[in-house]
């Protein structure tokens, strides 16, 4: 499985959690944001993006982000 460098642009995040849903569905076989390897933090009206240590940088989260908050580029370690 290819690994990507994934860049997070927190300011573009809208909190839709599509990344967490896609990740959990792929690796946990159920839509479960609490088990995703990417986590969206809520801070008032702002959001932050981080990856758990289990993240394999598969890029699925970036593929599912429609707001430009996650960007997948050349193969590499998690960004």
């Amino acid at each position, binding site marked *: 499985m290819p690994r990507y460098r994934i860049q997070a642009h927190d*300011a573009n995040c809208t909190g839709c*959690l599509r990344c967490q*849903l896609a990740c959990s569905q792929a690796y946990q076989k159920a839509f479960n944001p609490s*088990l995703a390897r990417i986590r969206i933090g809520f801070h008032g009206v702002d959001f932050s993006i981080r990856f758990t240590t289990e993240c394999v940088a598969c890029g699925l989260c970036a593929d599912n982000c*429609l*707001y430009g908050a996650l960007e997948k580029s050349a193969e590499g370690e998690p960004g």
Partner: protein
Amino acid sequence: MSLGGFAGKVLIVDLSEGAIRKEPLPEAFARDYLGGMGLTIKLAYERIKSGADPLAPENPIVLGVGPLVGTDLPSASRVYSVTKLPSSGTVGWSGAGGVTFGCMLKNAGYDHIVITGQAARPVFLEIQDGEVALRDAASLWGLGVQETCEALWKERARPAGVLAIGQGGENRVKFSMAYIDRIATLGRGGFGAVMGSKNLKAIVVQGAQGVSVADRKGYASLRKEIFEKIRAYPYLKEWQEIGLIKSFPFVDKEVYFKVKKKRVACVSCPIGCKDVVEIRDGRFKGLVACSSSAINLFTPLVYGMKDCREAIRLIARLDAYGLDMFEFFGLMGFARTLVEEGLISPGQAEPRIALDSLSSMEAWAGKIARREGLGEVLADGFQGVLEAFGDKALELAPALVKGMHPYAGPGSALPWDLFGTMELGQVLDPRGPHVGSSGSPTYFARRPLEVFPKHLARMGVPEQEVEGLLVRDAAGELSGLKVGALLRHAHRWFTILGSLGVCARAQINRFYNASFCARAYEAVTGIETPLAELRQRADRAWTLLRMVNLREGLRRERDESLPQQWFGKGRFKEYVSGNELSPQEAQAMIADYYRAWNWDPETGVPTQDALEKLGLQGLALRPA
């Protein structure tokens, strides 16, 4: 429950007894009513005691999320409620973008919550997976909506979802709403007052149970299909950038960009129509306001306010109190008229009522939310004012439907003048004047008629019925629409979307079609669902909503009459021709709507044949 998509449980909360129990979701109900909105109607029908006062302990609140909620299908996050509403006195649905609340409720393991009774003192309901408790809300009572959400979030990690009321709901203001995650509104018609009457300040929910789909392969294929469509949509970025401003040119984009802070999305939504704005200069510098659309924040400009910063400040106050802005402005305009006509003395109307003045409107919002002085009367809505000031006041009243002021049409906040399904729907939705259930291609005024057949097919209108909704001239060219009959299909389409849990906003539902919905429902739940079955189950739910209202006393001549203020020069126009609309033409549309449902064209009561086809025979047709 072995079905996918559903959590399989209903949470039952009796506030009087402080008792909480979990019941299995009846699988037959799920099969017959789809889920979400449809199943919420069914659960409410089972529990609403005939003749109950909306603000009495026995009036139940039923909340629900559809089987697609919690998946990553686009905008599958809607939360629905059904209860008897105090403004209209009818049993009505309320629906909101679920933000994180809907997804979290499903993840906590529940499809629905049923709340009855009245707590002895203010409480909030806390749901954390299987742990459910009523907590003391003494420290929250008296707080605004945003403060309440923030206080609850402070103790819990987001994305915990919060549904909360402000001071308006606490004090049973009949046009108070509840808010989801302080940004989405639930309940024009007084849902907030129903919560307040139960001493229920809020519900906070988080969960980690996960949502599974029955047919993963089928689901993946459908998901790919719809996201390819979304990614290819040429206006996606524009919608994400400016949201509903795109549809409402009365708001200057430059003004919007001056205050825009960011957009917020409900779980799984590709558009993100919720707005966060920040005032960057002047007296209110630093004020951050959240709204289900920036349009709302600019609405006071329609009433003459000049400074958009003041408009934002006022709507932020109304949202903090939890008051429906459309009803607020309609009511304040009415009160001003009553002062001018001498029915309300200037002494009662202090400060002077001026719809274009921030200080005046802020003061009145506070008086209403706290029920102070004349605010005590205004808090009971138009019905309260008419009871207090009698027949003379009725002569001066603006357009009213089921005791509420329509927000679209001549003399209303949204001065749309073409009479399409949303405008007519304000009379024919049981909940009262609301356009949400009545969307159709008439949503965007003056669409070319040629687009209608395609859109009607998308809404699930059977092929053989499409022509019956269109009017053709002698040459066979499209020349008109049968708005009444079309509304019947709009209500079915809305019920399909709501029952699955999908947002009905035009910007989202354009990516869906009824056939896709049937396939998605089947892939998620595992319930075999041909398109004809999907239609029938949605029809069953909407008809049951009709039936419960007939049982509660809904009458055509009183509750579905057309406001006279809608007719005359410069008022509503026929949708296609643009000619002045006559009351007779509009009445004929109502009869068409009833006929299209196979209801009696005079009374609007479903025929026995209609009920038998839906398996609803034997239900009461009128109050006992």
